């Protein structure tokens, strides 16, 4: 074994020795190097002494993959057995357009996809609502009725390993539509690995896709979760999209601390309904991105595994290993992808994808596309994205051993520091009164605004480099990539389709079903069954959410002062 005192003595010698002469001819490029988001100082060299400083031990902090503390991985063999499922986000236009793109992606070798909806849909508004004008099908697919969902999900389900539905506020409606559409198609629900995001709480902090106030919103999310667990136990009825916090410029510490605090708010709500922690916890999953700082990102992922396990065991007394093993969908982040010189983003996605693989960033990984800053994804970008995933998986060796960077002095030091800082921040949120209080008081929002401003400053002062933006700028006339153009007739087609459905359906049946939804909303009954009735009668998302608006009201937050 190394003698730390020996190393300490030798390191002191090294720092005072020839290096001093060396620095005269080769001064360091910065007076201080810092990590990307946390902006923590990065030392010249890390040694076993740094591990001693943070109290690192192999058994305590690493152990073996598949066993607590899970730092090295949640599965014993990780990608040696199963590569991560390779996924891409898309969803635009009408149900038919989305369907066509998903079929193309499956042909390109992807095994799953993420369904994003347009803003009217995520706000429980029909495509012909005044507030929907100009917004239909822009950020995702427009789903007004079951008819749209049936068209969208006309797919070869035997090829699909994962399907994610990114819905928050109107999740029960969305869930009901998926159930009904699969049923009509004769697809056995057990064969579909569906993940419903159902993550309304985070929307109050960033992205803002909420309808009703926080309290009723939490009730609705709990209804969906409870119903799903009972009837579709292989579906995942929650996903905490930590990546949304990241996109709002949360530091890795804020991202993990706020995400876990939010997760605990849902857990508390479910435990209040009498569910057991070991029933509930295994369903939780997190979308955690990496960014360009290779080490800060990998440390964040590894720390997340340790922190979740400790929270579930120590706060809730969870004993089932499935409660302790965090489920992550990983992703190269989008925040360092540039509008300028967009082909450079292919290189960025390559390094970030590698970081994901080395960190063990989940059993499923989503890759954003290099022309993301310009418009919705093009066919070419889709196949490049898939290629990047396959290159990292098959050509780099990153997937061929578990946690290959484990034991790196720098990485283990950073992982431990992040872990400690996250627990401190979680305690702080606790003292405020938990995640709901954090939302209502504006604490989270203010912290994020602060981080965002700090990061912007670091870019503008040139401390944080971004090629094409603050270094190696080029005068750009032509965009060297193809941009996908949205068909302006899409909104008209969608509205026409909606009106046709309303003409053809049994409107008495719809009225009855909506009354059933209202009754359930006014009481305690689970909202999913009456919503399922309404959906099958081809009630629209606007009509169903309209009823819920009548009962719960529409949320108008106070102005947050900056």
């Amino acid at each position: 074994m190394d003698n730390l005192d020996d190393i300490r003595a030798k390191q002191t010698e090294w720092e005072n020795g020839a290096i001093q002469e060396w620095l005269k001819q080769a001064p360091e490029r910065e007076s201080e190097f810092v990590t990307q988001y946390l902006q923590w100082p990065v030392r010249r060299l890390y040694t076993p002494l740094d591990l001693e400083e943070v109290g690192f031990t192999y058994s305590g902090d690493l152990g073996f993959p598949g066993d607590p503390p899970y730092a090295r991985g949640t599965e014993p063999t990780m990608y040696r057995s199963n590569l991560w499922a390779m996924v891409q986000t898309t969803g635009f236009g009408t149900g038919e357009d989305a369907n066509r793109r998903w079929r193309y992606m499956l042909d390109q070798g992807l095994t799953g996809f993420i369904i994003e909806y347009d803003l009217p849909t995520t706000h429980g508004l029909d495509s012909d609502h005044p507030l929907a004008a100009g917004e239909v099908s822009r950020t995702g697919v427009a789903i007004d009725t079951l008819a749209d969902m049936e068209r969208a999900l006309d797919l070869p389900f035997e090829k699909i390993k994962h399907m994610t539905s990114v819905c928050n506020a109107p999740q029960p409606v969305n869930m009901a539509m998926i159930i009904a559409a699969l049923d009509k198609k004769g697809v056995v629900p057990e064969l579909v690995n569906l993940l419903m995001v159902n993550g309304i709480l985070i929307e109050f902090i960033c992205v803002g896709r909420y309808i009703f106030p926080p309290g009723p919103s939490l009730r609705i999310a709990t209804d969906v979760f409870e119903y799903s667990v009972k009837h579709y136990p292989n579906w995942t009825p929650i996903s905490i999209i930590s990546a949304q916090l990241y996109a709002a410029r949360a530091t890795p510490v804020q991202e993990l601390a706020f995400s876990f605090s939010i997760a605990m708010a849902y857990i508390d709500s479910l435990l209040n309904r009498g569910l057991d922690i070991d029933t509930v916890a295994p369903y939780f999953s997190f979308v955690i991105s990496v960014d360009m700082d290779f080490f800060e990102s990998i440390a964040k992922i590894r720390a997340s595994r340790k922190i979740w396990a400790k929270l579930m065991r120590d706060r809730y007394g969870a004993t089932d290993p499935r409660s302790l093993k965090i489920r992550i969908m990983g992703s190269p982040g989008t925040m360092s992808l540039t509008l300028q010189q967009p082909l450079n983003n292919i290189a960025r996605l390559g390094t970030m994808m590698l970081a994901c693989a080395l960190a063990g960033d989940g059993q499923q990984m989503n890759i954003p596309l290099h022309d993301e800053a310009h418009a919705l994804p093009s066919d070419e970008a889709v196949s490049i994205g898939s290629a990047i995933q396959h290159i990292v998986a098959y050509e780099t060796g990153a997937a061929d051993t578990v946690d290959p960077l484990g034991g790196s002095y720098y990485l283990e030091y950073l992982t431990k520091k992040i872990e400690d800082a996250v627990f401190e921040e979680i305690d702080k949120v606790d003292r405020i009164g938990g995640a709901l209080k954090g939302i209502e008081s504006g604490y989270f929002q203010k912290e994020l605004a602060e981080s965002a401003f700090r990061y912007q400053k670091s870019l503008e002062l040139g401390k944080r480099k971004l090629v094409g933006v603050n270094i190696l700028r080029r005068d750009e006339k032509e965009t060297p990539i193809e941009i996908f153009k949205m068909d302006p007739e899409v909104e008209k087609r969608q509205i026409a389709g909606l009106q046709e459905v309303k003409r053809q359906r049994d409107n008495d049946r719809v009225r009855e079903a909506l009354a059933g939804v209202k009754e359930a909303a006014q009481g305690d009954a689970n909202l999913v069954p009456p919503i399922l009735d309404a959906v099958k009668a081809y009630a629209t998302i606007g009509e169903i959410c309209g009823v819920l608006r009548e009962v719960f009201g529409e949320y108008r937050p106070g102005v947050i002062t900056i």
Partner: protein
Amino acid sequence: MGEKTIRVLIAKLGLDGHTTGATVVARALRDAGMEVIYTGIKQTPEMVVQTAIQEDVDVIGISSLSGAHMKHFPRLLDLLRESGAEDKLVIAGGVIPEEDITELNKRGVAATFTMGTDTSQIIEFINRSVHKD
């Protein structure tokens, strides 16, 4: 005899709720000595014009990321003209394709600041364009 402070309204039109760009710009403008009224998300053009007049702002800064800019900005500009408030400077930020920037320019948007813009550029533009006496 002092210079009157430039007053800026920052808002988001439509259903998009990504606030990071808007809050960063609001904060930067405040740091540069301007008075900033940040009205948050899900504003309609009608709400923005009303607040702009009420608060007697010099500049209206709109963040648009959902792609609905060609519906929102023309409506906003029309309402400002109808209310006799067309002297207010309208600037845009967010995800807006090049050809739409040109079109919006023609319609009366003074400048569009897309991703990767330095906040100092926005501050400089406002200082240059707003005349206070």
